[in-house]
């Protein structure tokens, strides 16, 4: 990976994480439910940019842990785990490169993220008698709606403006 690309990815991760902690909470409903980090990770996994996905997961998770006011229990660990899960699903289950596969991937990842927070909350409550706020399913649903729209638009962008998913006519191979 070129150093310039690494710096670019770090900057993108910082901007997106700061958007989630310092801009989104000040917006009214439904705008405040737009949390783009997981969507970006899914798009990076879909276009096979694994290293970039890990950089974005690590940096944005670290910043979320620094500034978030709750419900982000060990975000850096969560995002790295979720990225690994996305890669496994992308390689073995959702193998076709389509907008439907990407949307399914982001929705599964969001649900897994919610389960992770719920389990962590239970463990912390039992062991340390402390609390981690678990978002309601209603609010997760709103976030998922934004995830779907964001991933669909992102995927369409890659299809129309890059050669990433270019369909080569069969005649050229003959």
């Amino acid at each position: 990976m070129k150093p310039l690309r690494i710096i670019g990815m770090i900057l993108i991760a910082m901007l997106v994480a700061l958007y989630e902690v310092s801009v989104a909470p000040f917006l009214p409903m439904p705008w405040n439910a737009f949390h783009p980090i997981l969507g970006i990770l899914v798009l990076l996994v879909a276009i096979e940019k694994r290293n970039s996905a890990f950089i974005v997961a690590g940096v944005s998770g670290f910043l979320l842990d620094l500034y978030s006011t709750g419900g982000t229990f060990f975000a850096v660990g969560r995002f790295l785990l979720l990225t690994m899960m996305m890669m496994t699903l992308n390689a073995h289950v959702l193998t076709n490169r389509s907008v439907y596969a990407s949307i399914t991937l982001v929705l599964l990842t969001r649900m897994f993220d919610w389960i992770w927070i719920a389990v962590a909350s239970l463990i912390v409550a039992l062991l340390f008698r402390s609390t981690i706020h678990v978002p309601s399913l209603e609010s997760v649903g709103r976030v998922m709606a934004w995830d779907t729209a964001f991933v669909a638009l992102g995927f369409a962008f890659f299809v129309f403006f890059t050669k990433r998913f270019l369909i080569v006519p069969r005649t050229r191979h003959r």
Partner: protein
Amino acid sequence: MSRRLIVIVGLILALLAVANVTGLLAPFQNISRAITVPIARSFSSAGRGIGTWLSRPLEISELTEQNVDLRARLDSAVVDYVRLRALEEENRSLRAMLEFEDESDYDFVPARIISRSSDEGRVEVLIDRGSRDGLEVGMAVVAEGGLFVGKITELQPRISRITLVSDEQSRIAASTAGRHALIGVIEGRGNGTANLTLIPQQIELNPDDIIVTAGTEEKIPANLPIGLINTVEGQQTDPFKHASIEPLLRIEGLDLVLVLRSSALRPESANQ
């Protein structure tokens, strides 16, 4: 995904978890905060601007209703204001006669809100001041007009977490304006409102009574306005009654706050 990659990421995760729990990450986190706090500050300002712009069309009906209510309250407040001005004048002349020197024991540390909770029930914000500014857990935070915002519940060198009055986990000792005695505890309800609980039956409360801090908590001075009584509930046979409180402060417009720091805790650099 290769097994090698899984092992590497797993190891990184384990190391991060250990470093997080043991506090080994703290110096690195402090340096990162020092670098990113100014950016977070600009982002939160931009977020507030966009939020205000986006919510304007939705609020017209709510604002109309609020306007009628506030006009009614203003009428009764005018009467109180005239009476208070007369008392203030009298007080000033009496203080002058006694050569009273008005010395406040508190410094006002201005701080900007850089993030806030988006979870239901939680009404918490992060401010860009921390322990290196002489702040401590439990200190009171007020808005520019002197309204009580909440108290510091978590501290880092450069940032602090403020739990607001309406947060589900917030508990504030309260009194009514002018009473100078504890009458109950304000418990947040998480939806922008709060309840005043554990009010002894003999305490008389009426709608629109002003609720202030009681001053019984170590770092929270008395008489900081919190909210107005909406309704009072409770049977005569109950040992305590409770009341619903409408906080005077609206979190939506909150940008700058002031932390009340005891002047004894003023950092050395501020004294020079």
